[in-house]
């Protein structure tokens, strides 16, 4: 490893450090020949090597395949081929719930330890076809169940802003990889906030597209009516560039929407250049106040002023049924996950425990699932089994599905008055590792602000709104749009980010503390 490719410590960051650049700038450097894809990939692999002991964002680093992908991009350029996409040659961190052929996939669970998927997810295929270099697989709460990455069977990821704190969850590995400059791009999945809440607490950007906007084929299922894959990065433009690479209809996912890919890159540029004059932005009355940290609310209020100064008309909207969103979610999610996780039966792939020649298949199944699943997964399977059992279905799952309708109606009404809605993305800044891990209900409250959009299936993203004055940690602004309203939220997020940068002389991710780089 060379010192020049890792962020400096006392001496400061060398200006040539490739890991500090945005994905858009890296892609431009490759196109113009200023840097090769291989050089850029090596710089990020070196950075991973230097900081992973401290951060633990990755469960697997694919050094060889990443370098091969990078060299293929360089060879194509040398041949004079057109770049495969605007992100050709740029490295990315892939959440370890999206499969890549030949690369271990665990979903953060012991039950899949050692499993090598024999096929690519559609998202993986699109990334590789676009020339994006996949650096490795990132840590997550087991099967994406959690808000802190502490439920990973492979140990927690640490927040680069403060290594004693959580990076959010379930996609804490992807968010931390961005904040630690281990990758400029990452893929997340969002069921109740697993892209947006980690983005908020690590000062990065993450978007959950409209349900069905990105294929779920090859994504290990948590709750099928809620799961959605989305792009993560340090800037809104990079997030939009990645969004356009991964989105689009896929015949292999029957819930995929047969609609053109939204033009979110243009939307960001429009927001940056023209602002948001005339847009109506609704502040959701129910997504502030009780349960929200004062430093978060302070940052949110400042963001509202920035948006107003950028030309938006700010109104307040009332969504009375949001009060029941968390309850509905924690019935729908366990129900669907108890069904989805039935596939881990110790027969066709993954762990098998207790197959001693006398035990029945059923006994082996029970032993394997008992040994292979962690505590939160077991809790949710039992809860879901209960909520779906005969005589309880109507009272629980049925009622929750009706609450979902009421929440959708709240949103529809709000979008008659506003073009986009905003709220804090996480009620609190990053908390200490260990703080909430023994209290499931306290942990569930982290998704307070993100769950309504998940239940309604609408697009929503988190963009850094600043640093909380009470904790000194980043805060996320959530921007929510109507169904297929991606262009609106990217425009607002782009306008906000550039207004913030003008006001503060830079964007939030660049203010992340330098990590002490380990020397091996």
């Amino acid at each position, binding site marked *: 490893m060379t010192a020049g490719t890792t962020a400096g410590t006392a001496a400061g960051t060398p200006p040539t450090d490739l890991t500090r650049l945005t994905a858009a700038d890296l892609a431009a450097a490759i196109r113009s020949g200023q840097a090769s894809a291989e050089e850029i990939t090596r710089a990020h692999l070196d950075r991973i090597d230097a900081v992973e002991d401290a951060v633990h964002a990755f469960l697997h680093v694919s050094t060889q395949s990443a370098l091969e992908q990078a060299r293929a991009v360089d060879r194509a350029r040398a041949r004079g081929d057109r770049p495969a996409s605007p992100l050709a040659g740029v490295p990315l961190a892939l959440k370890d719930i999206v499969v890549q052929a030949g690369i271990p996939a665990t979903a953060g669970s012991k039950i899949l330890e050692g499993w090598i998927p*024999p096929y690519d997810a559609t998202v993986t295929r699109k990334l590789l076809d676009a020339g994006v270099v996949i650096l490795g697989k990132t840590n997550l709460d087991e099967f994406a169940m959690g808000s802190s990455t502490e439920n990973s069977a492979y140990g927690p990821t640490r927040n680069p802003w403060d290594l004693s704190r959580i990076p959010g969850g379930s996609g804490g590995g992807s968010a931390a990889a961005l904040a630690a400059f281990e990758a400029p791009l990452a893929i997340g999945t969002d069921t109740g906030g697993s892209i947006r809440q980690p983005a908020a607490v690590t000062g990065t950007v993450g978007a959950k597209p409209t349900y069905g906007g990105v294929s779920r084929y090859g994504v290990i299922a948590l709750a099928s009516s809620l799961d959605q894959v989305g792009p993560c990065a340090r800037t809104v433009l990079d997030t939009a560039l990645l969004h356009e690479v991964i989105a689009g209809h896929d015949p292999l996912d029957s819930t995929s929407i047969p609609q053109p890919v939204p033009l979110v890159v243009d939307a960001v540029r429009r927001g940056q250049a023209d602002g948001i004059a005339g847009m109506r932005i609704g502040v959701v009355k129910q997504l502030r106040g009780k349960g929200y940290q004062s430093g978060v609310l302070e940052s949110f209020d400042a963001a509202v002023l920035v948006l107003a100064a950028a030309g938006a008309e700010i109104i307040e909207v009332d969504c009375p049924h949001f009060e029941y969103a968390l309850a509905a979610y924690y019935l729908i999610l366990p129900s669907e996950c108890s069904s989805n996780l039935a596939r881990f039966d110790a027969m066709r792939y993954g762990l098998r425990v207790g197959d001693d020649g006398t035990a029945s298949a059923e006994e082996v199944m029970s032993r394997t699932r*008992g040994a292979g699943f962690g505590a939160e997964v077991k809790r949710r399977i039992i809860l879901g089994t209960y909520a779906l059992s005969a005589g309880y279905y*109507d009272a629980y799952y049925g009622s929750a599905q009706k609450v979902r309708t009421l929440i959708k109606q709240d949103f529809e009404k709000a979008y008659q008055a506003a073009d986009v809605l905003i709220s804090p993305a996480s009620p609190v800044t990053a908390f200490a590792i260990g703080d909430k891990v023994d209290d499931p209900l306290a942990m569930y409250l982290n998704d307070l602000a993100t769950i309504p959009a998940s239940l309604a299936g609408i697009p929503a993203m988190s963009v850094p709104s600043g640093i909380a004055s009470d904790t000194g940690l980043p805060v996320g602004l959530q921007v929510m749009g109507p169904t297929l309203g991606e262009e609106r939220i990217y425009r607002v997020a782009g306008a906000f980010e550039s207004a913030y940068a003008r006001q503060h002389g830079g964007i939030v991710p660049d203010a992340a503390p330098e990590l002490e780089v380990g020397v091996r």
Partner: protein
Amino acid sequence: MSSVPPTEADDPGPTLSRDDVVHLAHLARLELTDAELDLYVDQLSVILHSVTAVSGVVGGRDIEPTSHAVPLTNVFREDLVRPGLSREDALAGAPSAQDGRFRVPQILGEV
């Protein structure tokens, strides 16, 4: 099961007994230790209490349930032969394979 579904918004909701959790874990094919059972009995009742509000808010109202966020209709494709996984690839992740098949523990009680 001894618990009953809630009927009113202010109903504290059901409490799961230890036997309930044992039964549910059996239905879910989940072997639990005694320590896990002790922990989950209390935690699950607390979680259940907090989520029963949904029954109260919808009450007996005639509301169409939402199962998916975007209206969906069934999707069909042409029934064409397409390349799939080879037998070798399909078995590569199996905990146990024999004669080109998944080997599973006894399922009908024979040894």
